[in-house]
């Protein structure tokens, strides 16, 4: 990792959005210290529930990071929310009546045209005629063509200034930054290889971006040494098979069928193995798969139809997406193999026995120092969540983050009295997304609990850390210091008082005050987060 590196993340399609969600939570944990990362969300479906969810999450992240005079804040070091994330959004416009299907976009109406014959050669009639508003529906041959077209079209609109849309301008800022980064650009792409939008875009994106940059400014191009990395995420979820009634409508003439995901994955892997352009463009590709039963996204969902996209496509998160975010960590922090001529394919295995997968802190970004770093950051953020959500009742509608401020003020530490309530509410809301909430006494799992529920074995921490039992959560003051099964990482515990008392002692200790230079924190809100982080770090002693 060189100091001059410029970091870019592109999330494509529903799966890409959920990988980005994991990436955002890793940033909140402080896994991307001192980094400024430009993020592009790329989808065909602006209303997609997963896309909206991650964009809301990043918006919240940026409100938490924002300091006086600096929207989105600045990068910090060794604290929570340490990376600066700049979000850019681009989506292809398939809602306009003239652009809803391949036939309309390509103006294929005359049956005798050469183009029509060419299209018929590659695309079935139903593929040419389905509604694109919900994405490419696992038709990657069509998707690659259309995504390339959409990117180039956006660049042309930006160049001419005609029909320029807001999302195209955001996209323009992103690829200008990418071009300016030159050889220092490190671009990581999130998306699946078995579905529609992600699978369609990953192979063509570097070329499409390069062409878009050239169209925008003839003197510019994507630097030859710009480094691309991506996940090769094979199937890990399934959903209800579409029935004939749903397919009867020509808009839904093609619907992705998850029973073909395994086949799609195999075909895609063969393509990535053999295609010289992909091999040359990408430096690292991370194989991520799920060896046990796929998660059924239709489970517990009302309705008989297959959800093809839109606001209803708000699928729960899965550990494979978290592993994709960890792959991005490796790509950004490990320069080994970056000079190679051909793509390097990377994978890592975890313990698997009797159908059960066990994950410990060495399984995510590597073992040794990296394993400890992961344990420290992940453990600290889960602790922060439980302190705010469980002990300070943030999950039950109280403002759990305000609880920290009140405690500090109550113990005569008045450094943070200027922090506004809106900030604490935003941070509390972020922790709701990350951890959990209660809605009418019903447990509502956030990202962490959704991820944990996809792991049948151990997930880094002791199972007590993931309890959903209201009574156990009420007594969490005694368990807050025992999130890890490893006793050496337990917090100090006192007779009849548990671990919360020693934690507050550390919180009010002068030792844990934020280190302005070292942690690169200057605003009061940044100092507050660094202060809480330091107290947790000192408590868990990892």
């Amino acid at each position, binding site marked *: 990792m060189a100091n001059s590196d410029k970091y870019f993340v592109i999330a494509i399609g529903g799966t890409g959005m959920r990988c980005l969600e994991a990436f955002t939570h890793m940033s909140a944990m402080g896994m991307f210290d001192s980094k400024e990362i430009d993020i592009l969300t790329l989808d065909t479906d602006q209303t997609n529930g997963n896309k909206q969810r991650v964009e809301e999450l990043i918006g919240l992240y940026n409100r938490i990071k924002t300091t006086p005079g600096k929207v989105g804040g600045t990068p910090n070091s060794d604290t929570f929310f340490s990376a600066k994330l700049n979000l850019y959004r681009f989506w292809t416009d398939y809602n306009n009546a003239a652009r809803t299907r391949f036939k309309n976009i390509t103006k294929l109406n005359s049956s005798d045209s050469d183009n029509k014959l060419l299209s018929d050669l590659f695309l079935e009639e139903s593929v040419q005629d389905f509604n694109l508003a919900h994405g490419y529906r696992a038709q990657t041959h069509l998707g690659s063509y259309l995504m390339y077209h959409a990117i180039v079209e956006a660049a042309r609109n930006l160049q001419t200034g005609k029909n320029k849309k807001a999302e195209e301008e955001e996209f323009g800022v992103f690829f200008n930054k990418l071009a300016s980064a030159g050889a220092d650009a490190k671009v990581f792409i999130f998306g699946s290889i078995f579905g529609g939008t992600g699978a369609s875009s990953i192979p063509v994106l570097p070329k499409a971006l390069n062409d878009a940059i050239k169209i925008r400014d003839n003197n510019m191009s994507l630097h030859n040494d710009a480094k691309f990395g991506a996940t090769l995420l094979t199937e890990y979820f399934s959903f209800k098979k579409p029935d004939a009634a749903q397919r009867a409508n020509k808009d839904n003439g093609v619907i992705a069928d998850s029973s073909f995901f395994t086949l799609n994955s195999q075909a895609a892997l063969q393509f990535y193995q053999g295609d010289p352009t992909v091999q040359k463009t990408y430096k690292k590709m991370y194989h991520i798969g799920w060896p046990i039963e796929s998660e059924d996204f239709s489970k517990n969902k009302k309705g008989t139809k297959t959800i093809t996209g839109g606001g209803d496509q708000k699928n729960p998160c899965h550990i494979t997406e978290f592993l994709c975010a960890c792959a991005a960590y490796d790509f950004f922090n490990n320069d080994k193999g970056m000079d190679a001529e051909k793509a390097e394919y990377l994978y890592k295995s975890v313990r698997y026995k009797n159908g059960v997968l066990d994950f410990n802190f060495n399984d995510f970004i590597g073992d040794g120092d990296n394993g400890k770093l992961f344990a420290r950051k992940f453990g600290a953020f889960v602790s922060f969540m439980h302190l705010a959500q*469980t002990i300070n009742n943030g999950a039950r509608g109280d403002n759990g983050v305000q609880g920290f401020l009140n405690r500090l003020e109550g*113990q005569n530490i008045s450094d943070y009295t200027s922090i506004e309530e809106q900030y604490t509410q935003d941070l509390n809301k972020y922790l709701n997304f990350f951890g959990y909430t209660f809605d009418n006494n019903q447990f509502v799992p956030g990202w962490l609990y959704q991820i944990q529920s996809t792991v049948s074995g151990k997930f880094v921490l002791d199972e007590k850390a993931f309890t959903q039992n209201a009574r156990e959560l009420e007594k969490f003051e005694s368990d807050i210091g025992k999130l890890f099964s490893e006793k050496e990482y337990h917090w100090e515990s006192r007779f009849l*008082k*548990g671990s919360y008392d020693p934690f507050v*002692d550390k919180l009010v200790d002068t030792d844990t005050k934020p280190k302005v230079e070292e942690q690169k924190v200057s605003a009061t809100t940044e100092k507050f987060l660094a202060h809480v982080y330091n107290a947790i770090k000192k408590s868990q002693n990892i």
Partner: protein
Amino acid sequence: MKKSTILMSLLTFFSITNLVAQTKINVRDIPGLITQTYIIAIIFLLAFILIAVIISNMIKFQGGTNPKDPGKRRLWFWILAVVAPISFYLYNLLLVIPNVKTGPALNKFSMHPPIASGIILVAYILVGFALAKMFSRGKIGNWFPSKK
């Protein structure tokens, strides 16, 4: 360490109490008794401060936006501020004064228990305030309201 200090204090207190209780005190011994009374007042003061510290530390930090623990510590501090002079006065009234000969001896002594009780109250608050400021970030920092 804390336990042994408490035991020592209690032993000293009871031995002095027994000594006083066993003898009838006449006017000649009153100056000594007065001195002894003020020494015991200091012991009372220190003992009650110690009790306040122990109780404050026993009260757990609570979570939430409006934790009750600082209020509990403050309440106990003020309860003990009241109990300390009253118990000292009652100790003198019930265990010391009955052993003082009525007449000049009692006249000379009787004003000192209320004075010492008053001193205990004032000194308890002053020492408490000083300790709360010295350890403002700790649990005893809750004895006096923090600045808003």
